[in-house]
């Protein structure tokens, strides 16, 4: 049930992101009324209103979905891949490699993530979207690697691994062909949840003005646009906030659904 709701929501969001040019009445950065430059409330011509620069908010929200989802999905691909590799290595090799890697992970988890990303992005002159994706991906693998390591360390003691070893399989082959397929469940769940969390992180960064650069729309920078006119033009920040909630909710529900589906006991 949850899996279906989550999947449906995520597919709908992906469709919105993919079909953005067809769904939007105006280009997202076009200033439509340069004479008055006034935030207009929702109307027939602008269902979500316009912002302080007279840009159509519906178009910005729809293109914002595209930007947010691209960043989140690519960043999660990077962090889950890295985290899985490190977790596999630490969990399977054990010993010194495990100890060193896990201390690095502890250090990575000990610094608030927002902070690391802030430092790096602020030091690099001019944030580009690929840099943003890289940074979020490279700082996001610590938690994943810990989960994978625990799963791998448990799987290593199972009979099928012993059987593979007795059959003469190499450690690399055992790790990738025998252990990895048996620990994909938690990795998939983590990835689904992770997409939602990266959407939140990117929104926070863009809100602070160091994420997606203007005039490219992002839900975070739309909220920043609207935060000083919350009383006179509440539609600016409201729409973007709801868009974030629905998106993160979709991926969280999908994650929960996947967990239920893959491991019925835990639900």
């Amino acid at each position, binding site marked *: 049930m949850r899996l279906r709701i989550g999947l449906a929501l995520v597919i709908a969001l992906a469709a919105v992101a993919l079909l953005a040019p067809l769904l939007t009445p105006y280009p997202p950065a076009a200033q439509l009324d340069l004479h008055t430059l006034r935030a207009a409330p929702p109307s027939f011509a602008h269902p979500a209103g316009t912002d302080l620069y007279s840009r159509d908010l519906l178009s910005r929200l729809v293109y914002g979905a595209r930007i947010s989802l691209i960043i989140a999905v690519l960043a999660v691909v990077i962090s889950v891949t890295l985290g899985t590799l490190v977790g596999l290595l630490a969990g399977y090799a054990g010993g010194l490699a495990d100890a060193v890697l896990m201390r690095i992970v502890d250090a990575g*988890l*000990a*610094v608030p993530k927002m*902070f690391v990303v802030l*430092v790096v992005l602020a030091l690099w002159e001019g944030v580009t979207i690929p840099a943003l994706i890289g940074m979020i991906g490279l700082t996001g693998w610590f938690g994943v690697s810990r989960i994978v390591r625990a799963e791998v360390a448990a799987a290593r003691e199972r009979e099928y691994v012993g059987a593979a070893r007795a059959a003469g399989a190499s450690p690399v082959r055992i790790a990738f062909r025998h252990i990895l397929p048996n620990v994909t469940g938690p990795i998939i769940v983590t990835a689904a949840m992770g997409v939602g969390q990266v959407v939140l992180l990117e929104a926070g960064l863009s809100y602070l003005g160091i994420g997606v650069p203007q005039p490219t729309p992002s839900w975070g920078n739309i909220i920043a646009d609207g935060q000083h006119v919350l009383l006179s033009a509440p539609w600016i920040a409201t729409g973007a906030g709801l868009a974030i*909630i629905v998106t993160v909710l979709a991926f*969280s529900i999908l994650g929960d659904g996947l967990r239920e589906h893959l491991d019925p006991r835990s639900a």
Partner: protein
Amino acid sequence: MSTNTISFIARRLAQGVIVIFAVATLVFVLLRVAPGDPLAVLGEQPQLSADAVERLRRTFGLDQPVPVQYVRYLANLARGEFGVSLTQHRPVLAAIGDALPNTLLLAAAALLVDFAVGIGVGVVQGACGRSRTDAVLSLVTITLYSTPVFWLGLVLLVLFGQTLGWFPAGGTIDPIGHGALPLAGRMLDRLRHLVLPALTLGLAAAGYTARHQRSAMLEAIGQDFIRTARAKGLRERTVVLRHALRNALLPTITLAGIAFPVLLSGTVLVETVFSWPGMGRLAADAIGRRDYPVVTGAAILAAVMVVLGNLLADLAARLADPRIRRSA
């Protein structure tokens, strides 16, 4: 305190030092690898001659090879010397000293809200067990978990700060009236300013805590000792609160250690929304102005707080659970 506990603390502190060392190294590498000159801030001031900048470069040791800089940097940190802020013209520790109490107050209050709401809701859900109440509360907690903390802050700010006017809209004290108030009034003033930011940060985190607490409760209620307690004819209230909750609280205590860095990440945003002069604002401002010594100091302090938070959480877990004491 048993020798076992003391050796546990010693071991964890040693690990903590390694973690902090790793964080210090990470910050050093990040700052060196980043393009841009650490003294660019000073170079932008026209009254400074190139000669003066060169002298400063020597003072900060920036003319030395990188390995030498690294060793000096670690030696200074080990001696507790964090240097002087490039933009605030005072020692980094003084700037941190002003900001840290505000953040600790905010984080402590938020943790209180987080755990009161999170555990409360989780216990109700666990006790109701897969009912309509559980389903509705699940939707509420997962929505909280999915809400951007700064947006929640803005909504509460508009609603309770500006529209209803129940609470002040930002800052830690009333900038005009605070000094004139009696002690009790000053404390009340601080408390009124604390409510909205703490509520924002706490509620945003409570979604996760509640989800965690719910599954811990469900797991505890499935255990044999609960059946025994029910079979003895104990009231359901006693069974839930006395028997199940006590066991289901353990994972949550450990969670507090993990929740702390997440809370600190949140403070960057919440302090921005509510103009709260804490570590998050200090760090964000320092990063924006390329004030490297403050950035370094704040990062290391954050790591120290997280390490200590984890240690406290683990100690609390040991205190609550004799099984952990014996196995370690």
